[in-house]
């Protein structure tokens, strides 16, 4: 019973069980238990990588190296905290009648299926299987986004489904092109799609074809990452879906899509030996930061606003991986971790705030600090963390990103700086009235569970102040791996 089977089996089996199990209080505990099992296996796998370095299993089908091991443990950890958070949250949603019992059953099974999809993407070594797993995860989230069955939720789910469907289809076209060139070199079987083999002899792949494949891949996976102009599905999906889903979607799924894109980028870099792929990613990254920063100002729904903040941060990460130097990659990886921790924490807080104030429209969310100090201060500190103020990890990665960018493309830093300031202005302009001010009279007092938020912010603080050495070591090896040179 190898660890990979346990890691993938647990969520798959639970999702099937949950589909048939009647909705009882035990459902949430089963959900948490399954996520906990997955977390433990992920951590033990991580421990094994710490010992042996990167290793493959099941005959090159599964694969763990410095790049995806921390993402795996991060995904497992955030999935568990989301499961813990979603327990009381969904019960409260059921009490106020927004969700019926069997829809909760759908919610739990789809949640586990979604988590299974993400684990599969991270652990697989085969580009084709990676594509399938990503498609599976998208399908699961579509049903989750349309959970409330309100007209807006269905429209959002439909838009999400069509745009991401088209995007992922283009990515499939790119994968097929990669398979076309690699089958000349590695033969017609599964080996031609195995990433490790492809990475080792990327030199022999045809550069022209790889660039065209990368164009399809960046447009395809870029839609899933939420890069501008393919980002339009993201705000609606976040705004209408239940909060735990927005947290996981924003925190993890975007990271997974970017992980897949960067995997392909390393292959293309190996093949073309040029920096076309990097420049493309930098272009998209910069565009996303600027457009997202500007669109933060005129939002009315709190979750839509934070989804634009996610687009901005994904833009920053794509920009970092676009630069490609080891320092920039290090900054990108650190930003991935810090962003998903802080953003999911913020979404938990926003979920509580929306429940307390009964609405997601920011105009009638006021006085959180005096109404519920836990939520108010959580939101304030979370926003300060996501805006890139120092004690937290997001600042460290932005700091490293600036210095890396200044090395290679000095004049690009100016628009980036302006984008960050405009984004901060847009974000804080909405958050400050929500946190401070006089408490509105219709504010309900709800049972809040802010432990996951403070755990996430604490971890982000540790990332900022005292980065653990083993994590830094992983980032370092992954950075050099992505740069294409041995460390």
């Amino acid at each position, binding site marked *: 019973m190898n660890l990979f089977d346990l890691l993938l089996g647990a969520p798959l089996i639970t999702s099937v069980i949950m589909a048939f199990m009647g909705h009882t209080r035990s459902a949430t505990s089963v959900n948490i238990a399954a996520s906990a099992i997955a977390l433990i296996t992920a951590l033990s796998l991580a421990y094994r990588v710490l010992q042996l370095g990167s290793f493959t299993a099941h005959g090159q089908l599964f694969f763990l190296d410095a790049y995806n091991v921390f993402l795996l443990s991060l995904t497992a950890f955030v999935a568990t905290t989301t499961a813990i958070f979603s327990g009381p949250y969904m019960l409260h949603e059921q009490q106020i009648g927004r969700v019926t019992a069997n829809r909760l059953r759908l919610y739990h099974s789809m949640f586990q299926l979604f988590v299974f999809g993400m684990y599969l993407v991270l652990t697989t070594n*085969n580009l*084709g*299987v990676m*594509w*399938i797993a990503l*498609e*599976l995860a998208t*399908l699961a989230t*579509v*049903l989750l986004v*349309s959970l409330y*069955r309100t*007209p*807006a939720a*269905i*429209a959002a*789910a*439909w*838009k999400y*489904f*069509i745009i991401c*469907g*088209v995007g992922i*289809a*283009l990515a*499939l*076209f790119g994968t*097929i*092109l990669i*398979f*076309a*060139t690699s*089958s*000349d070199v590695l033969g*017609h*079987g*599964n080996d*031609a*799609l195995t990433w490790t083999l492809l990475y080792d002899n990327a030199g022999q792949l*045809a550069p*022209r*074809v790889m660039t*065209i494949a990368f164009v399809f891949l960046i447009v395809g996976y870029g839609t899933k990452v939420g890069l501008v102009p393919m980002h339009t599905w993201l705000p609606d999906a976040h705004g209408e879906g239940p909060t735990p889903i927005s947290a996981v979607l924003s925190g993890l799924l975007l990271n997974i899509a970017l992980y897949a894109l960067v995997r392909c980028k390393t292959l293309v870099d190996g093949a073309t030996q040029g920096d076309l792929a990097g420049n493309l990613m930098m272009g998209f990254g910069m565009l996303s930061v600027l457009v997202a920063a500007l669109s933060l100002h005129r939002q009315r729904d709190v979750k839509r606003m934070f989804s634009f903040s996610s687009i901005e941060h994904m833009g920053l990460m794509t920009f970092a991986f676009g630069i490609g130097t080891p320092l920039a990659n290090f900054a990108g990886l650190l930003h991935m971790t810090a962003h998903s921790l802080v953003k999911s924490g913020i979404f938990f807080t926003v979920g509580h705030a929306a429940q307390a104030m009964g609405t997601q429209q920011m105009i009638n969310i006021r006085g959180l600090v005096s109404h519920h100090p836990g939520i108010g201060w959580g939101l304030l500190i979370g926003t300060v963390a996501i805006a890139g103020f120092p004690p937290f990890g997001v600042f460290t990665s932005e700091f490293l990103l600036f210095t890396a960018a200044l090395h290679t493309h000095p004049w690009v830093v100016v628009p980036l700086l302006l984008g960050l300031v405009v984004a901060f202005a847009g974000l804080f302009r909405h958050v400050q009235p929500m946190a401070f001010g006089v408490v509105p009279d219709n504010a309900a007092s709800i049972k809040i569970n802010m432990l996951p938020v403070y755990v996430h912010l604490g971890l982000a603080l540790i990332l900022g102040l005292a980065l653990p050495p083993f994590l830094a070591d992983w980032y370092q090896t992954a950075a050099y791996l992505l740069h294409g040179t041995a460390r």
Partner: protein
Amino acid sequence: MQVTLLQQWVGVAAAMMLLVVFALLAQRHMHALLRWFALQGIVLALTSALVANVADVPELYISAILALILKGVLLPWMLWRIVINLGMHREVEPLVNVSVTLLIGAALVLFSFYVSLPIEKLSQLVTRNTIAIALACVLLSMLMMITRRKAITQVVGFLAMENALFFTATSTTYGMPLLVEIGVAFDVLIAALVFGLFFFQIRKTFDSLNLEDLEDRQ
């Protein structure tokens, strides 16, 4: 290299695929659209069988049969039943009138030919010259999704795009590894199920399948 009779047949099949996609673009009636979609599935199965024979790759036969069952019969039938019991009125209202769409389609074919020129020069496969057509089919089905007003026609466009991708797989690489092939087919099936689920939802809440009504809820 002397082009054998069968290879010529593969070329003909590719031409047929392109013709079908153009026909899908030009349809006005829902029923005709579904019939052409089923035809596309059958042609797809035929081409993969032919390529299997020409390049003597045995698994391709399995995926050919799979394609025939799934894309030739099952999906069109499902869509047909949905159209019947939702009582959709007949015609397909395109956003942009048909002749302009066809013109854009032709331009796209020319464009995809230029784009895929380098791929053809490099690939040693016998079916290399069909890559351009495969790319054209993908772009055309995307165009179809953009220029249609109804949710159903958008789904047909999406599935046509999946067919085009299947066709690309067979033409550029003699079919993806079996594991991947099955996975992709499985995903398309789930996607179709979810579409069906959605149609009932949209019908119930919006009582019309026009995409405009979806929007004004914002």
